[in-house]
């Protein structure tokens, strides 16, 4: 279907039933994303009933900002980021969990955004490649990729960098062999592996 790729074009308009279901849960999931962060997430979620049908307004926290978008439940987190929030830094390679181009962080953990639904990530802290730099100040991993020439075409790079940041934070970049194994979820068709490894290892060694 077009609608999960091109939200503004032929997206089906909500009929009455989906409007009702939107209203029914608007105070639920919509409200909970704005609920005070002191309340534990599970508690917030249990407090409401939560069935979503058809295009529905949901709120995601992306790179520190609450973003509201109108999506069907079948929209993956990857498509929500790229097609609805215009955050096209996160790439779609295989769309089946096989390449790592779509890697983002959710609550600090790296995941493949192509194999999760956006509606499942409400109330969580999502970080994409766009959220890594502090203003003009690049993240050390971004700088290391530039210094070591860790890319050729650059398509896999956002995923490599997001994975690299997590890999170092997890403590899985202690040796070349360990870093290779824990970076194996990110494929590079250009074969820039040696330089990617050098970048990840340098950031790990700097501590």
């Amino acid at each position, binding site marked *: 279907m077009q609608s999960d790729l091109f939200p503004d074009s032929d997206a089906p308009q909500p009929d009455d039933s989906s409007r009702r279901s939107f209203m029914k849960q608007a105070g639920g999931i919509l409200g909970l994303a704005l609920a005070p962060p002191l309340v534990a997430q599970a508690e917030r979620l249990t407090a409401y009933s939560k*069935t979503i049908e058809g295009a529905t307004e949901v709120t995601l926290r992306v790179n520190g900002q609450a973003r509201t978008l109108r999506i069907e439940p079948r929209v993956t987190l990857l498509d929500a980021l790229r097609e609805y929030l215009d955050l096209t830094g996160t790439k779609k390679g295989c769309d089946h969990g096989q390449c790592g181009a779509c890697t983002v962080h959710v609550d600090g953990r790296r995941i493949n955004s192509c*194999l999760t639904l956006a*509606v499942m990530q409400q109330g969580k802290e999502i970080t994409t490649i766009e959220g890594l730099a502090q203003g003009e100040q690049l993240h050390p991993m971004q700088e290391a990729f530039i210094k070591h020439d860790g890319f050729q075409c650059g398509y896999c790079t956002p995923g490599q960098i997001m994975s690299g940041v997590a890999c170092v934070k997890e403590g899985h970049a202690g040796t070349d062999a360990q870093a290779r194994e824990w970076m194996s979820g990110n494929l590079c068709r250009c074969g820039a592996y040696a330089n990617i490894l050098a970048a990840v290892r340098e950031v790990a060694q700097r501590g």
Partner: protein
Amino acid sequence: MNNFSYTQATTAKEATRQRKDEPTAAYIAGGTTLLDLMKANLEEHAQLIDINLLPFKGVEQTKDGLRIGAMERMNDVGEHALVRELFPAVSESLLLAASPQLRNMASIGGNILQRTRCGYFRDAAFPCNKRVPGSGCPALQGDNHNLAILGTSEACIATAYPGDLAVALTAFDAVLTLENPKGKQRRVPVTEFYLLPGTTPQRETVLEPGELIVAVTLPLTAHARRSTYLKVRERASYAYALASAAVGLDVQSGTIRAARVALGGVGTRPWRSPEAEKVLTGAPATEATFRAAAAAALQGAQPREHNRYKVELAQNTLVRALQQVAG
């Protein structure tokens, strides 16, 4: 992917009730198997019931052994200190699987219920007895290089469970706790959970419609402490096993007191080998013994055109794994 409604369940009761009301609904945990299949239009569900908030959590010692909640994630369980210490093979089977990102998403329950990587199953343009019962099995004469050589039938030769964890669970006598929509729990040994294809390859497990996997419990033993999982694949990482072995030995003064052997990548289900265990038990821990055990494990193999290599590969994998734990 077809359109569906989405519901978040917070209790098992809520999840199973939703599922009863909508028979074509499916539970979603990590989503890494389910969404993969739905995107390829191999599965269609009118509703997805998110079970991530169910309290099937924790890794803890109980009187029956180490209990692992079905909603725990593969990476967390693989890196858990108790799992590493008491069940090295289980830890290794988890950390050698998929990729770090997938392991952060994927749950233990979902892992146990992952589907085959048979190329014909995964391409709706082809007939496949598992996907469309009675339509035929193109793999018998076609590309079967990654399919099974043990437990096959004329209807299906797929490694129905292509992954790793359940191979280790099969070796170490894990027991699954299941809960049905009436709220009733039952316990099923993993060795009885997966079914052989026979004439009904569409039935892969004894899980009833709507039944949830709650937890996995592993009994504590000396042979499980001294165990390993060896995985052989086409590339060094991020690939399914061509052959794998989960083995555990209790060796005392050079003699094997107890042995557990299960193979992955070669059986239509995770393949426990009582034949190999019989050869090993009471025998000296030597290469000759290991070779004899490997021969016994593959005795009944029925290879086809493109997977003949697996007979020798599986034997060598098993021998190497046994050598590793024998030290």
